[in-house]
C-alpha cells in the first residue's frame, strides 16, 4: 500500500475511496444528530442516521457500516442490546458508544461486547473525528501506522515525526498535539478539546488554557525550521487549525 493511501481513504480531498466509508449514527436527539452529521460530512464520510432502536435494527440488518456511533439510551430499547446483535454478526468492533452516562458499568459491558471505544457526552467535534478515524484505521487499514500530509509523515506507532524524511524530535505532548491536529486537518481544534485530549479529561480545571499557546509556539517553530509544508493557524483566539501550505 502506498504511503498516502490512508489519507486518500480517510480525508475528503484525497478523494479515492471516501465514498466507501459509511457511518451509521444511532442517536435520538435530533439536533445532536444534525451537528454530528454536519461535522462528519465535512470529512467526506457518508452518514446514515437512525432515531431509535428499531430504526437502527433495520439499518444494520441491511448494510455493513464501517463505523457505528451508538447511543446507549434509545427509545424502544437499549443500545447494549443492539451491540449484542452486532457482536453476533461480527460487527461490534467498529462501534463507538456515545453515552450521556459516564458509567463504568456500561463502559465495561460495552467494551466487553466488542465496542471499540466509549465517548461520553458532551464531546468536542475534534475528539469525535479523532476517535472515528482511529476506529477506521484499526479495522479498515490494518498495518497502516502513518499519517502523511505535504512533506510530513507522522508515525503514531513508533511515535516519530518526519519532515522531508528527516526525523524531527518532539516531546510526548508536542507529538500528541501534532497527531491530534493531523487527525483534524483543516478543522477547528478548540483549546479546550486540545487540553482535554493531551492533558487528560481533568475534572476541576481552574484556569484558562493560555499555557497551550506556548506549546503551539514551540511546535510552530520546529515546523518552520524544518521547512514543513503544514502550519498551525490560530482561529479567533478560540482554537487552532492545521492546514497544508
Amino acid at each position, binding site marked *: 500500500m502506498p504511503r498516502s493511501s490512508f489519507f486518500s481513504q480517510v480525508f475528503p480531498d484525497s478523494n479515492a475511496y471516501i465514498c466507501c466509508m459509511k457511518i451509521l449514527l444511532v442517536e435520538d*436527539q435530533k*439536533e*445532536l444528530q444534525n*451537528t*454530528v452529521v*454536519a*461535522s462528519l460530512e*465535512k470529512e467526506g464520510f457518508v452518514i446514515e442516521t437512525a432515531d431509535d432502536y428499531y430504526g437502527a435494527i433495520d439499518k444494520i440488518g441491511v448494510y455493513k457500516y464501517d463505523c457505528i456511533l451508538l447511543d446507549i439510551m434509545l427509545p424502544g430499547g437499549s443500545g447494549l442490546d443492539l451491540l449484542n446483535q452486532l457482536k453476533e454478526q461480527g460487527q461490534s468492533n467498529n462501534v463507538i458508544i456515545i453515552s*450521556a*452516562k*459516564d*458509567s*463504568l*458499568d456500561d463502559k465495561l459491558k460495552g467494551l466487553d461486547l466488542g465496542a471499540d471505544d466509549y465517548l*461520553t*457526552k*458532551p*464531546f*468536542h*467535534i*475534534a475528539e469525535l473525528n479523532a476517535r472515528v478515524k482511529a476506529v477506521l484505521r484499526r479495522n479498515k487499514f490494518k498495518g497502516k501506522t502513518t499519517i502523511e500530509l505535504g512533506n510530513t509523515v507522522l508515525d503514531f506507532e513508533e511515535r516519530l515525526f518526519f519532515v522531508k524524511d528527516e526525523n524531527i524530535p518532539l516531546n*510526548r*505532548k508536542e507529538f500528541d498535539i501534532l497527531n491530534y491536529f493531523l487527525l483534524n486537518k483543516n*478543522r*477547528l481544534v*478548540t483549546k*479546550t478539546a486540545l487540553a482535554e485530549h493531551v*492533558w*487528560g479529561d*481533568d*475534572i*476541576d*480545571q*481552574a*484556569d*484558562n488554557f*493560555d*499555557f497551550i499557546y*506556548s*506549546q503551539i509556539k514551540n511546535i510552530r517553530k520546529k515546523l518552520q525550521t524544518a521547512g514543513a509544508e503544514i502550519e498551525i493557524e490560530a*482561529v*479567533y*483566539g*478560540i*482554537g487552532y487549525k492545521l492546514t497544508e501550505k
Partner: protein
Amino acid sequence: MKLINRTILYLSGFLLLAISIWSVVFYLSIIDEIKDSIDDGLEDKKERIIYEVRHGGSDMLSVKDLSKRFFSIEKIEGEYNSKNRYLDTLVPLEDIEDEKIEHELEAVRMLVSHFKYKEQGYKLVVVNLMVEEDDLMEAAFWDIFWLYLILMACIIIIDNLVLRKLWKPFYSFLEQLKKFKLGHSVFPKTKTKTREFQDLQKAMNILLRHSTEAYEQQKQFIGNASHEMQTPLAVTINKLELLIEEGDLKPPQAEHIAAVMDVIGQLVKLNKSLLLLTKIENKQFLDNQQVSVNEILRECKDNLQEIAAYKQVDITLDNQDEISVQMDISLTRILISNLIRNAIFYNITDGKVEVKVEKNVLRICNTGVDTALDAEKIFDRFYKLGQSQKGTGLGLSIVQAICKLYNFSLSYSFKNKLHCFELEFNQN
C-alpha cells in the same frame, strides 16, 4: 452513667428511705406492743396484790422497798385517785451477782395506783423490768442494716442478670444505629419480645427509611439532572464549534462566541464534577487494584508541568517512601491530580509546590495567600475564595469524597506561609 448503674443508684436511695421510715414505724409499734403486754402484767399483779391485802395479807402493807419484791405500798392522806398511771422510769433494783446483792438502776415500767383498805387510802407502785430501749434499738439497727445489704445485693444481682438480659436487644440496636451510615441499605435489626423495643425499632426504621429515601432521591436528582444536561450541552458545544468553523465572523462576533464557549466549558466541568461526586458516593468505582501512588505522582507532575511552567510555579517531588494502595486507578489519578492542580492554581508567581511521600503520608504544600484558609469550609461544595471564579468549587469536595470512600484521612494546615494538605493512606 449506664442505665443499670442508675437503676441501682435510684433503687438503693429509695430503698434506704423506705427501710428507714419502715424501721422507725416498726420499732415504735414493737415498743408499743411490748409496753401493752407489760402493762397487762402490771395490772394483773396490782389486782393480785390488792386481793391478797384484802384477804389477810395486811403484812404486805408494810412493803416499802421497791427493789426487793417489785412493789411498794404506802399510806396516803387526802386526795384519792382511782386512775392507773403508767410511767417509764429508772429505779434501783436488787441484782444478785456472784452471791452479792447489789443495787443497780434499771429501766422499768411502773404502775402507780391508789386503793382503799379499811377506810385508809394507799398508794400502790408496781414495777416490771423493761427491755432496754438502747439495746433494742441497736439490735434493730443492725438487723435492718443487714436486711438492707441483703436487699441491695439481691437488686444488684437481679439488675445484672435480669435487666442486662432485658436491655440486651436495646444495646445491640443502639450499637447498630451508631454504625449506621446514610446510603446503606442494611437497617439496624435486633430480635426482641419487648414491646417497647419492637416499637422503637419500628419507629427508628421508619425514620431511617425516610432519611435514606430523601438522601437517595437527592443523589438521584443530582445524577439525573446532570445526565439530562449532557446531551443539550453536547449540542451547544458542537453547534458553536461548527459555527466558528464556518468562518466569516467579525472579531467582535467571534469574541462573543468565545465567551459563550468559555461559560459552556465551565458548565460542562461543573456537570462532570457533580456526576463524579454522585458516582463516588454511589460507589460506582469498584475496579480496585494495586496502585503505586509514586507512579501516579510522577505521571501527574509530568502532565501538569506545562501548566506549572506557565504559572511560573516550581513543583518538587520527594519520594522518600513507596506507597502502594488498593484502589480504583482513575480515582487515584483524580485524587492526586486535584490536589496538585489545586496547589498550582491557588499559587503565586514564582511560587512552589512541594510534594513529599513519607511512610504512608502524602504531603502537598504550596505557597499562596498569606492567611490560612478556613479548614472547616475548604472541603465544602462550592466553597470558593473570592479571587478565583473559574474553578467549580468542587475539586476539594471530590478529594474528600474519595478519601471518605477509602477511609483515608485528609487534613489541611497552614505553617511557615505554606498551605499543606496531608493525606494518610490507611490501608485496611
